[in-house]
């Protein structure tokens, strides 16, 4: 909210794009950073390259307001990325706040966003930790997924292995395959037995959400429409899911079908994914 005090002041010069007072860009690279804050035991190290010019091209760098949409969309991409790497039925990461953000136009390679943010494991209600990462949105006529760079250390994967093993054993040996729908239901209620399937679906959906992300999207999992357990294969629990993914920018909710596998050792993998058709319009679409 403090930032809005500067908004009020800037208003009276009133050039709309100048609502944000630009900060002096740092001239030093961020480098490797070990971030241990108080009791926070996680550390997300930045793997970061200095801005360099290629073939005489000058990188243009622009500071962003971390509360505005560009920073929050890039922060969400980082969140999806972390969940594809480290998410599990007991670990789901949420980027809670972006603290600083800037873009670097790398030319043909695309637009790079450099962020400092706070992240927490929402599933285990872990501590909030500060971290930093880069997101590169490739350019081109055909959509390509953004590339994210971050290098967490092993501390991120502590504390959930016992619970994951117990969950794995339970559903490997269950009498009948699990199946459920509407998680959460319309009342926002989640059966305690289903909570970790919600987390699993959230992590699996992160693969799709990461793939589909661009500078003009902000994806989240709206609901797990269906989850059906399939036979164990190669030591992996397998599930077929139908998920509803919401994009805040287009306000679309799309239904995806996916097949996922999971084990404590191998993490979440998405084996198949398919966008299901949405509707059949009666009227013509206008040009």
């Amino acid at each position, binding site marked *: *909210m403090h930032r*809005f005090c500067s*908004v*009020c002041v800037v*208003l*009276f*010069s*009133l*050039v*709309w*794009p100048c*609502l944000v007072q630009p900060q002096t860009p740092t001239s030093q690279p961020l480098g490797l950073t070990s971030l241990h804050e108080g009791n926070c035991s996680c550390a997300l190290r930045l793997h970061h390259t200095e801005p360099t010019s290629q073939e005489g091209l000058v990188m243009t760098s622009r500071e962003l*307001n971390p*509360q*505005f*949409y560009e920073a*929050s969309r890039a922060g969400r991409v980082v969140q999806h990325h972390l969940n594809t790497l480290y998410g599990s039925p007991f670990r789901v990461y*949420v980027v809670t706040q972006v603290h600083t953000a800037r873009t670097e136009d790398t030319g043909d390679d695309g637009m790079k966003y450099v962020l400092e943010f706070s992240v927490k494991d*929402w599933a285990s209600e872990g501590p909030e930790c500060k971290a930093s990462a880069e997101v590169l949105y490739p350019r081109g006529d055909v959509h390509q997924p953004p590339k994210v760079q971050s290098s967490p250390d092993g501390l991120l994967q502590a504390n959930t292995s016992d619970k994951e093993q117990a969950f794995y054993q339970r559903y490997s040996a269950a009498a009948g395959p699990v199946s459920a729908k*509407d998680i*959460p*239901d*319309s*009342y*926002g*209620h*989640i059966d305690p037995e289903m909570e970790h399937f919600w987390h699993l679906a959230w992590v699996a959906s992160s693969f799709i959400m990461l793939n589909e992300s661009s500078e003009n999207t902000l994806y*989240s*999992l*709206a*609901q797990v*429409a269906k989850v059906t357990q399939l036979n164990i294969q190669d030591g992996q629990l397998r599930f077929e899911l139908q998920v*509803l993914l*919401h994009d*805040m*920018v*287009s*306000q*679309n*909710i799309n*239904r995806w079908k996916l097949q996922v596998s999971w084990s404590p050792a191998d993490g979440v993998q998405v084996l198949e994914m398919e966008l299901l058709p*949405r*509707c*059949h*319009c*009666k*009227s013509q*679409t*206008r*040009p």
Partner: protein
Amino acid sequence: MKLNYRVVQSLQQLVYNYTNYHTMDEISDWIQQMEKDHPDVVSRMVYGTTYEKRNITLLKIGLNNTMPKKAIWMDCGIHAREWISPAFCQHFVKEILGSYKTDGKMRKMFKNLDFYITPVLNMDGYVYSWKDNSVSFDSIQDYSMTKSVNLPQQSIVMHPLVGISRNCCSDIYSGERALSEPEAKAVTDFLSANRNNILCFLTIHSHGQLILVPYGYPDIIPPNYDELVVGLAAAKAIKDVHGMDYTVETPPNVLYANSGSSRDFARLIGIPFSFTFELRDKGQHGFTLPEAQIQPTCEEAYQGALSIITYVHDKTFASAAYTETATLVLGLNGVITGKILCMECLMRI
């Protein structure tokens, strides 16, 4: 079906549960009950019909006066799947009716103002959202074909320019033409007819924890932008309740640009204070906010809305009280110069 009415047998009364989500039928019954229970201050008004011919109903709340009164407009449930929104309108009504007899300030507002509160604007969509989660964002013209329309963006102003889709299958399809949807037309007709008396327009949505100020179209600033920062005071009032952060901004900055919204329409026809509230949360539960969060969400949003309504009331009716409020809220001196577009200029876009 959950038991939503608790019968207190000793008193033979029905007690409505404001911490659960209610069906359209339950809300319709509640609307009638509010009028019955508070006949001196509450009256129902039907101001339009939905596509499926349901009566769009508001509660007019205030002490009766033979002279026309200034008014506050609040609508909930324009986006059908945002269930916390109708829950908030019900909570708001309960709170103001529960306090006006004992709270001097609220009683003064009941004397000077009428509250026009629509608990569920998009009734067709709300009914449908109780059957199907994935199609409930909009009014439903033909849900067998799931053609649907984004109601807030039906307004005639700046329709349609940005933040909309011309594809009838998109969730932000803005309709065949401006005001093609009866629900949108009902609202704009009512606002237009009462534009000289409506002081404040509040439209309640979820999610995002935002207070959005005009305009949705980038690079256009309303002439009273400095007064719209009263939204900041509302965000502070919200945070004081349960510590939740609500960001106050224009949609192009914090979300995405959009045009033709009802909030912008209200501002452009001269309603001076126009806000969109986006309630909890920030995406973890999203539209399916757990019922356990209904009470705290409504409590904080109530303080936020009340902060704005109190400011607007004091500005209009009590100049001494306004000066104090304005000093606290604004703390600014100066004159706006630069890129201000006049209403006529905007209407030509």
